[in-house]
């Protein structure tokens, strides 16, 4: 039975999950949730799928799960024996994967989300975004990405020498930064970060997802 992913192809958190499923070659069916009409906030969705009214949620042969970062860990653990090894192999490698997953969640994500709110989400509901806030958060992102640049000059990928969940988790938000947010310079201006981004975004699974989401290939 295929895994059901509830969400949309262009939303960041569902993309995180789908990227992982594609990497592991797990068949899935994207069940479209109408975010524009607030389907995810309706009682049925809240009761059956995600009590916080957000996407994604998955259903794996009756087993339900939400929170994209928990889902990718579950998928990676369930199919641990299958390449690519997304969790790290030794205990130390696994710890570093966890560390950079946490960095994404606590040092990186909020900054990107605040920008997305101003640049995309508020305008979509007819409210003006705060340009000053965008610039302020851009500055914060610069400092954080300096740390990433430092890290990536010591190792090819965030957690070490191979592509893992830690890198994967960043794909959707960085795609947003270099496209809709118009902040591609944040990546381009950093040599190692830029090389890393080019490497991870040219993985076949990510390209497949870009096609699914109907983005122009670049």
């Amino acid at each position, binding site marked *: 039975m295929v895994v059901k992913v509830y969400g949309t192809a262009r939303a960041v958190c569902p993309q995180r999950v789908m990227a992982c499923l594609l990497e592991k070659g797990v068949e899935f069916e994207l069940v479209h949730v109408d975010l524009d009409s607030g389907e995810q906030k309706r009682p049925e969705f809240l009761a059956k799928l995600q009590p916080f009214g957000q996407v994604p949620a998955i259903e794996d042969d009756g087993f339900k*799960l939400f929170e994209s970062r*928990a889902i990718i860990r579950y998928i990676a653990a369930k199919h641990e024996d299958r390449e690519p090894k997304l969790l790290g192999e030794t205990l130390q490698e696994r710890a570093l994967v966890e560390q950079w997953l946490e960095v994404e969640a606590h040092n990186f994500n909020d900054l990107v989300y605040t920008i997305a709110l101003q640049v995309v989400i508020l305008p979509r509901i007819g409210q003006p975004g705060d340009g000053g806030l965008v610039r302020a958060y851009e500055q914060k992102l610069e400092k954080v990405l300096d740390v990433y640049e430092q890290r990536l000059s010591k190792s090819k990928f965030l957690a070490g020498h191979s592509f893992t969940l830690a890198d994967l988790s960043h794909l959707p938000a960085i795609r947003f930064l270099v496209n809709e947010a118009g902040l591609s310079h944040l990546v381009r201006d950093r040599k190692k970060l830029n090389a890393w981004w080019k490497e991870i975004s040219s993985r076949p699974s990510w390209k497949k997802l870009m096609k699914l989401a109907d983005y122009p290939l670049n």
Partner: protein
Amino acid sequence: MALKLYGTSVSASTSRAMTCLYEKGVEFEFVSVNLFAGEHKQPPFLAKNPFGQIPVLEDGDLTLFESRAITAYVAEKFKETGYDLMRHNNVEEAALVKVWVEVEGQRYNPAIAPIVYQFFVAPLQGKSPVQTIIDENSEKLAKVLDIYEAKLSTSKYLAGDFYSLADLHHLPYTFYLMETPVASVINERPHVKAWWEDISSRPAFQKVAAGMTFGGK
């Protein structure tokens, strides 16, 4: 060689990591970091955590930062000893633990941390608590806790009928919240209240809570 945990005893994130170490019965050396002197933002410490934050765990030649990565590592490395925090023998239970670990990190923490900051940290910097920040975040926290109340009426703990890392991660910030008027959001929800009383009475946390006093009690 013993593990080394860098941080302060009043820091919620450090307390999160320390509680996990106690639950697992793991010996460690606690190294105090002088936050007031800005030690965490200077080169020797930045070499351990380039983001300039506590806690940091050193285990031989492995240096780890991010408290929730530290707890995940400790829970896994010592999975056969102490309390089973991550349900490693059951893939589905382990996944549910991860769901509620994420809920704490993504939903609970962003609402509760600013409240605790206003009451406990702002005064240390000579600032008065900003009531609008407290009110806005109390409202957010209340909405999250409504969902917790519903969940905890169907299971004793967040991921199931077993205490896990997911519950543990909530301890430090909630401990501080209970010392403020906003404790009402916990006390008004019977299942949440009962859950809080249960998890905060665990000996491992009691040991850590003893050091969580801003300016002494």
